[in-house]
């Protein structure tokens, strides 16, 4: 656990110092929200109705820029071999990289939540259940992204292939998260959202378990 945490914290430190992935992601996020705002506005009711979808479209698209960062850091520094030489099963590497990507996506999702609430009138009255939905959604997204990013890390076309691989698998998570967010935005009680949360939890558990178990077999120097 100590090594998993150390790996995630080290990667976050490098990412914040280099700012390569974060700057492009936040710029892209701003552009996406601006375009959607112009396309769907200016009626408040239209913007409000679209808010849950906008939240997840922005998160998924902007998140796709961060998806490759977990292993992109290693490729940029040519340190992938060093990482694979670390003793022990390679499962812990997956968990460390997952935690790093989850941290980045969580930060991104907080910013997206605030921006969507401001621009699209997404009600934050049910902030805690909304946050739970976001966390459950990004866990699944990060689980799949970390796995596939490791798989294609050494390919020169990794940046092109990764979103295709990730989106094809992560669609159920995004759909369930959109439904749960829409229900919460419409004033539904937590009990009404619970079935969507159960679905998200099931996907998260399946993706995390399968990815961490398969990871040592797909990543090689």
């Amino acid at each position, binding site marked *: 656990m*100590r*090594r998993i945490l*150390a*790996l995630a914290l*080290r990667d976050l*430190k*490098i990412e914040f*110092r*280099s700012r390569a992935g974060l700057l492009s992601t936040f710029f892209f996020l701003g552009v996406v929200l601006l375009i959607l705002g112009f396309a769907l506005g200016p009626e408040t009711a239209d913007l409000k109705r679209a808010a849950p979808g906008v939240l997840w479209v922005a998160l998924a698209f902007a998140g796709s820029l961060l998806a490759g960062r977990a292993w992109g*850091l290693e490729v*940029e*520094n*040519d*340190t992938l*071999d*060093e990482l*694979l*030489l*670390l*003793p*022990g099963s390679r499962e812990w590497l997956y968990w460390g990289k997952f935690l790093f990507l989850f941290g980045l996506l969580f930060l991104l999702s907080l910013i997206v939540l605030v921006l969507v609430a401001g621009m699209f009138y997404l009600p934050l009255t049910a902030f805690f259940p909304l946050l739970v939905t976001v966390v459950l959604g990004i866990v699944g997204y990060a689980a799949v992204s970390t796995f596939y990013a490791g798989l294609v890390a050494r390919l020169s076309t990794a940046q092109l292939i990764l979103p295709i691989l990730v989106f094809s698998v992560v669609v159920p998570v995004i759909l369930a998260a959109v439904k749960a967010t829409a229900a919460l935005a419409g004033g539904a009680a937590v009990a009404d959202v619970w079935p969507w949360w159960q679905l998200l939890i099931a996907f998260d558990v399946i993706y995390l378990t399968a990815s961490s178990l398969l990871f040592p077999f797909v990543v*090689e*120097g």
Partner: protein
Amino acid sequence: MLSIEDVWKRYGREWVLKGVSLRVAAGEAVALLGPNGVGKTTLLRVAATLTRPQRGRVELGVDRSELVYLANPPAFYRHLSGFENLKTGTLLFGRPVDRAAVEGALKAVGLPPDKPVAAYSSGMKKRLALARARLLRPRLLLLDEPETALDAEGRTLLLGLIAEVKVRGGAVLLATHDRAFAEAAADREVALS
């Protein structure tokens, strides 16, 4: 200690290693010599378990936590300082981190602790790799062209590291083009062709 038996490795259709066998005993340093493209680096990567051979067997004789592989060029995180690279590297290796030991290892190779690796020269990166190897105290040390980019003082440090590993009963396998360095560093030379 290290045993490589009848190893065959190909990239695409081209065989790089064809039935290579090699043993490195405890307390011994062996130098791999040979022209470019003969498979020296590939053999080291196979020995380091970084790549799987199509055929053959590799027995490390030590736990993977006792193996250190110094690639050429050595790889470090550019946005971290030399100290941060060694500290986190040691921690991720599963070893306890002793701040004084990390600082001592950097001082021993003449590197400033706080300078980011992005500002390091090739020789400084090699010295940082030596510091890392010293800190991890490997029983099996694999070195890929370790002498390149090092000045005379750096080479002395490198020879000191090799001697240290041997004295502890460890084994060293190194690849080099430099016959004079091989003679100085190794007990035995093996030519790949």
